[in-house]
């Protein structure tokens, strides 16, 4: 309400219209002290360029890797990250929270 994801969604549309392959990641659920609120977006193109944030930098690398797979096969995925997660050592949230991120292709 008090801030806007406007630029990211506009960028997602603009990138796709330019003919780039584009995926959109959205925080759909958070537990504990998550760094970015539900509804936050990260837009990724086929060359791993990205804009926005789903975790303030903690797990973006992992999300981008998954986004490239989504761009490839078009199948949306839901990813989960947190310190309790087995991936914590490579993509964990130092804040101790957990987040779930939905990644979809823009078709």
């Amino acid at each position: 309400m008090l801030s806007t994801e406007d630029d990211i969604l506009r960028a997602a549309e603009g990138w796709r219209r330019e003919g780039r392959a584009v995926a959109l990641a959205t925080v759909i659920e958070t537990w504990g002290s998550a760094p970015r609120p539900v509804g936050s977006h990260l837009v990724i193109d086929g060359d791993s360029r990205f804009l926005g944030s789903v975790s303030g930098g903690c797990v973006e690398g992992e999300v981008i890797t998954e986004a490239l797979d989504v761009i490839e096969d078009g199948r949306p995925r839901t990813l989960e990250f947190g310190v309790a997660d087995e991936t914590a050592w490579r993509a964990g949230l130092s804040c101790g929270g957990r987040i779930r991120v939905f990644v979809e292709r823009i078709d």
Partner: protein
Amino acid sequence: MRLDTLSALNAERAARRAALIVTDPGDGSQRLVRAAAIDADPLGPLLRERLRSGRSGLAEGPDGRPVFVAVHAPPVRFVVVGAVHISQALVPLAGQLGLDLAVIDPRTAFASPERFPGVRLIAEWPDKALEEIGPLDAYTALAALTHDPKIDDPALVAALRADCAYIGALGSRKTHARRVERLTAAGFDAAAIGRIHAPIGLDIGAVSPAEIALSILAQLVATLRKGRIEDRIKAPDAARAGA
């Protein structure tokens, strides 16, 4: 997301109209629900509540499957009437909160870029200035801070007509009593006038301009976040006057 859905969403946002995206995270199916179409939607009451609270999140769909509801409400604009000392203190705080701020004041001695560097500043009377800013709406907050009814009143009238999300007016209870008389004479009923937070700001004992600015923004955030219908922050006497 389909590109046409994304385009339609961005078009609603550009027009400052609220919209929601309902997604089934299981299969990725998705639809856009415009604010005007909420009541006809199978998830109507849920979507209405989500839009009111401004909170995106998972919910139960009609068939029991989880759906993700993304709320896209327009960014809140904050129109400050009066290029006064308090307004100078409001500028940095409002910026931190992500409010899209505009300051209007026809008195060019007050509305000078030296006093308000980097701020959208309109040195016009409210009627003219509001034309320039664009129509006030339910996602606009307005604070009248000049102490001058010639400037404050037309802005307050415009804000009441537009059903602005938050309306506040500076001035003592005595000043506000006279304001109520003028607005009543102008045809507004007690319920409408009761929507004006006056004296403006949460009662935190604010003294300095920065403290008053903080009290105004705290009240604005409380009104936006907690919903203006069940406004528990509002003083009981003000709530009664608005009933």
